[in-house]
């Protein structure tokens, strides 16, 4: 009873971490030792992420965009990019779509031209025998 349980230092609920780990198809059973370490490292991870996000920030408020910024800049956080995208304003979104549309039109035109050339070349060689038959 003199030695404190190491689990007591943890904040995150071990049972929940275990449930998440077991939701992975490759995991059947989770022993107490790996469970303890995964929980521990998850706490390290989330505090590390929050600290880095707050560093880039001069106010007293930590916001989503600060975290998303860290995630987008650090390649080891690639696994978070899908769930933490950079948020943009409606105006930025419209500008982005306008740019995309402009680019799309250009490439469409060029591809149409090239495909027309291709088809005309082909038709001149292949359609002649057909027309002779009919």
């Amino acid at each position, binding site marked *: 009873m003199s030695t404190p349980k190491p689990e007591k230092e943890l904040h995150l609920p071990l049972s929940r971490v275990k449930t998440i780990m077991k939701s992975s198809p490759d995991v059947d059973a989770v*022993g*107490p030792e*790996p469970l303890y370490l995964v929980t521990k490292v998850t706490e390290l*991870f989330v505090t590390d992420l929050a600290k880095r996000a707050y560093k880039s920030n001069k106010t007293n408020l930590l916001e989503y965009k600060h975290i998303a910024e860290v995630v987008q800049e650090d390649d080891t956080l690639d*696994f978070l990019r899908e769930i933490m995208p950079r948020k943009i304003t409606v105006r930025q979104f419209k500008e982005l779509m306008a740019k995309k549309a402009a680019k799309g039109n250009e490439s469409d035109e060029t591809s149409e031209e090239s495909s027309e050339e291709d088809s005309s070349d082909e038709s001149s060689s292949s359609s002649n025998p057909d027309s002779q038959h009919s």
Partner: protein
Amino acid sequence: MAEKLEDLNLPLTVVTRIVKETLPEGVAISKEARTGLAKAASVFVLYVTSAATNIVKNNKRKALTGQDVLEAMTDIEFDRFVEPLREALENYKQVTSAKKLATGKKKDDSDDIEMVDDDQ
């Protein structure tokens, strides 16, 4: 075990508490930032788990060990967590072996297996 979808997320309140403790006092965290951090932590659990199980598979073993979790950190390029985690593992082993001595009689292995079975 995981009947509800919420069960696959870490509790928001706990994640927020951990984060608040590490940031300077008086820093507020927006609602969106809280949910974002909790989500990130939940995904991280799966990310580490799959990296560790890859090591287990590559070594043609079955059971996941603490050492696998340690090695997984290097694989996913989170080397900065290796040292604190190694210390945590050492501490954990010391305390659990002390506990086993205290309870006595029980064999080392059966103790571990029992704990695994209980939760299944």
